[in-house]
């Protein structure tokens, strides 16, 4: 258990900008600088940066690194070439989702796994005893920082800042490059639904890099905008849409956990797929601005038929949207439902996510 709230290497930068801070996943993080709305729209129309140093970064190396990781990560890792990253899960034997992760292949013998902040300690304790003695493991989360730079101007601007053409870097591809004698990693990934990059560099250099990007005109954005952006982009959040009591089948994400090769949780996922999930994750959209919130009940024909896991007003769509788990027969786009809010009930339509995407 985390006993004290941690600070990222950018904590002083956030304070200097007058950010509103809150605890998230055991870390003191910026919620907003100017405001959620303006940070959201700046990401959709220009370029913003997010402190994501709180996320976990695990490096694996050795001749058996691929073999060991393949048995732990639900995605097909053997089909990946160098410089490719893929989204997948760490699962329990019963198929419950321990975490959702992104695996980076530098080469067959060197891998990076990026995990959620709140699950970092749990993941490490689960992974390390399962690796075998021949795989070297490093939790680099403290020595390495991470920034997400997102928005339609991100690739062009970062090409100039890093003096390297990144505009042709494919989605879910990454490169390593040398900058002032330091090797940094840049991937075409993100959590906003926009074109953008995630940049990994030394924790001791990240504050200077942050300041350099501020001077280049990149606006900082906080966790508030990160949440509304990922909702519009239909991206699940661990602890809301994903948890140990759910499998990838309920989340509608079985395609990330269906490789032929064995991995922990594979048999349970296959069984759940064959039997059919009682509930499925779906998006919803209302006609107005009033938001449904996590925990609100979904009613269909007057009886309880699901539960909201995330909900907010969506600035780009100018209406309230969210994620919910609904009984499988109902969980199809077009179904009309009522959401109990504790005040006036909301009328909503179940929809296919994402409601917004400009990643490609």
């Amino acid at each position, binding site marked *: 258990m985390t006993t004290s709230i941690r600070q990222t290497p950018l904590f002083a930068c956030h304070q200097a900008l007058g950010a509103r801070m809150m605890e998230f996943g055991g870390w003191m993080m910026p919620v907003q600088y100017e405001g*959620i709305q303006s940070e959201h729209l700046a990401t959709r129309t220009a370029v913003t940066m997010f402190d994501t140093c709180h996320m976990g970064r695990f490096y694996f190396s050795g001749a058996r690194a691929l073999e060991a990781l393949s048995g732990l990560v639900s995605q097909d890792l053997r089909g990946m070439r160098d410089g490719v990253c893929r989204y997948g899960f760490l699962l329990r034997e019963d198929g419950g989702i321990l975490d959702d992760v992104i695996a980076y292949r530098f080469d067959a013998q060197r891998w990076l796994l990026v995990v959620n902040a709140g699950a970092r300690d749990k993941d490490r304790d689960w992974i390390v005893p399962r690796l075998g003695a021949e795989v070297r493991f490093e939790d680099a989360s403290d020595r390495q920082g991470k920034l997400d730079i997102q928005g339609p101007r991100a690739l062009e601007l970062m090409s100039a800042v890093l003096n390297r053409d990144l505009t042709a870097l494919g989605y879910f591809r990454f490169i390593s490059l040398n900058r002032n004698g330091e090797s940094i990693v840049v991937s075409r990934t993100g959590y906003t639904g926009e074109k953008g990059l995630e940049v990994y560099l030394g924790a001791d250099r990240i504050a200077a890099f942050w300041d350099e990007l501020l001077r280049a005109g990149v606006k900082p954005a906080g966790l*508030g905008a990160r949440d509304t952006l990922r909702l519009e982009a239909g991206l699940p959040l661990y602890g809301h849409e994903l948890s140990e009591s759910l499998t990838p089948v309920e989340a509608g994400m079985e395609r990330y956990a269906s490789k032929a090769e064995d991995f922990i949780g594979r048999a349970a996922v296959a069984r759940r797929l064959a039997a059919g999930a009682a509930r499925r994750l779906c998006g919803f959209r209302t006609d107005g601005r009033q938001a449904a919130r996590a925990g609100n009940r979904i009613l269909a024909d007057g009886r309880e038929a699901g539960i909201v896991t995330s909900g907010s007003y969506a600035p780009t769509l100018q209406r309230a949207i969210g994620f919910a788990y609904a009984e499988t027969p109902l969980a199809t786009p077009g179904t009309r439902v009522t959401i109990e809010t504790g005040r006036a009930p909301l009328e909503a339509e179940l929809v296919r996510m994402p409601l917004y995407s400009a990643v490609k």
Partner: protein
Amino acid sequence: MIPEGLYYTKDHEWVREDGGELALGITHHAQEALGDLTYVELPKTGKVCKAGDALLVVESHKAASDVYAPVACTVAAVNQALADAPEQINQDPYGKGWICRLKEWDREGLKSLLTPEAYRKLLASESA
């Protein structure tokens, strides 16, 4: 950002006497604490409230917050512009961001509300 000539509540609302009615809104401090407002559940005209009754609800990205009737009153009118532009409360909390007008209000109750000076002290004590 605590204008003179208004009455305030400990729940960070303001009212202003205006042509026999009261205009009501939330304070600059309240809108700043809530962040960008995304939705206002306006009361129905004619709604009758006792002092302290939930009058209406304002929502930000993260939360919904009740706004209470500062005194016994009846809702005379609402600022319909907020239905599509709740950000007016953030931009101009004491002006274009007014939320509703109240009639048949309790004149004795008004005297028990906070003066600008008392509200300033309340904010100072809350931030201490």
